[in-house]
């Protein structure tokens, strides 16, 4: 069927916090250079899923293989090596408040790539700021940036180590519609330019349609629907997926 390399393979993944069952049997195959959009209402465990992917959380049972390795079984050293291949763009950008944009971007670079000259570091940072369209912000503090600018810098910071996989946690949440479109374009550009495989978490269908090859809807701890936008939404049977579509449709 599909012969492309599988970058992420998830099988029967379970995760709960105390009495709260969050993921209840998630299955997923993500292929190289694919852009998967994960949709779902807030609190369904979308962030938990990608946090398990980078080893920030650990599943209760099931497997989570990234680039051929079971994340939960990796010793810290190998886990860190794997993490360098994954760019994680956090929901609130998670820029380091006490550092300038330049220092934010240097942070992962100087700690993980040895023997870089000052000039090489500077060039890399400037190139990426150029790519996200914010070269003038290099000496600003995060508190001086708008929400959309923070998102861009956050993305640039994750790109600094040339990740193979990009995970975007609600990249357009809390942004105005025009900025949303900008961020969606940025996600597509990053994908084309850096040949990344990505997962984009969102509850914004416009964003999903614009950035995703494939949609996956997380409901009741499982992926309830998976396929292209056209396959999943207009013909949705599940009332909740339908209401998702209707809501976004009426609002846009």
């Amino acid at each position, binding site marked *: 069927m599909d012969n492309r390399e599988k970058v992420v393979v998830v099988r029967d993944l379970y995760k709960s916090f105390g009495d709260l069952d969050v993921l209840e049997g998630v299955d997923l195959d993500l292929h190289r250079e694919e852009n998967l959009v994960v949709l779902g209402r807030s609190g369904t465990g979308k962030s938990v899923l990608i946090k398990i992917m980078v080893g920030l959380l650990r599943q209760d049972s099931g497997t989570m293989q990234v680039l051929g390795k079971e994340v939960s079984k990796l010793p810290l050293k190998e886990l860190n090596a794997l993490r360098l291949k994954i760019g994680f763009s956090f929901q609130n950008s998670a820029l380091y408040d006490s550092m300038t944009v330049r220092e934010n971007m240097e942070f992962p670079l100087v700690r*993980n790539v040895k023997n870089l000259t000052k000039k090489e570091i500077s060039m890399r940072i400037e190139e990426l700021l150029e790519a996200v369209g914010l070269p003038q912000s290099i000496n600003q503090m995060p508190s001086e940036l708008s929400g959309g600018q923070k998102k861009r810098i956050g993305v640039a910071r994750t790109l600094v180590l040339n990740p193979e996989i990009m995970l975007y946690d609600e990249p357009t949440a809390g942004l105005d519609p025009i900025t949303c479109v900008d961020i969606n374009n940025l996600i597509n550009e990053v994908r084309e330019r850096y040949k990344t495989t990505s997962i984009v978490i969102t509850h914004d269908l416009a964003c999903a349609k614009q950035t995703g090859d494939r949609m996956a809807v997380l409901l009741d701890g499982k992926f309830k629907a998976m396929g292209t936008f056209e396959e999943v939404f207009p013909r949705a049977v599940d009332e909740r997926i339908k209401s998702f579509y209707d809501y976004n449709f009426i609002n846009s």
Partner: protein
Amino acid sequence: MAGEADDRKPLLSKKIDKFFTGLADAWNFVRRFFQEVFLPPYEFKEVIHQCYRIGVESLPLISLTGFIVGIVFTNQSRPSLSEFGATSWLPALIAIAIVRAMGPLVTALIAAGKVGSSIGAEIGSMKVTEQIDAMEVSATNPFKFLVVTRVLATTFMIPILVMYTDFVALIGSFINVNGKELVSLSTFFVQVFDAITFLDVFSSVIKSLVFGFTIGIVGCYKGYHSSKGTEGVGRAANSAVVISMFLIFIEELLALQIVNAIRGL
């Protein structure tokens, strides 16, 4: 009535449970510090940066407080000494009081309020805005970068600040003594240094190291374990101050016992 008791029981056991898991967490946190402090990579630059920040944050308040403590303490001690016609002992008395107790205590309490709360709030807000997670996924050990550096910085800086406070307080005292008893600067300080023993200075430094460690580790622990939301950050900062002040008093009492035991040898 029975129902009421039943409602209360799980609540109480839950609280006790929480207290002990909290204690175990705190112990693990301290242990982790000692495990990681000796392992590379060392974040020297960040330690220096934190030392600088601690100095800048607490210097104005410490200067003012130390100076006033010196003046007030001298002024208030004078009447009881003059009853015995012993006001010439003032410099020695003040020196001992400041070096043994007032200097370390005043400095540590002010630093707990200023520095401890700001560490708690800073790390707490980094926790809730996922900055700590961001460090972790960029393969940097956030414990090492945030906690180890800050704890080292407070541990080294508090003794230095204590010496500074001692000095400022003695200046305050000198101004008061000089005004009343017309003692010259050199006489004053000769008397001061005659009164202070090596054990006084040594125990003051050790005590200050412990105070500094306490302020750093409590602030970091509270921040690192702060709950989600801005409210959680506020609570982290607040309990960092309360708990470190409490511990500082306990440590002061313990130090007193130990030093007295050594003196008795």
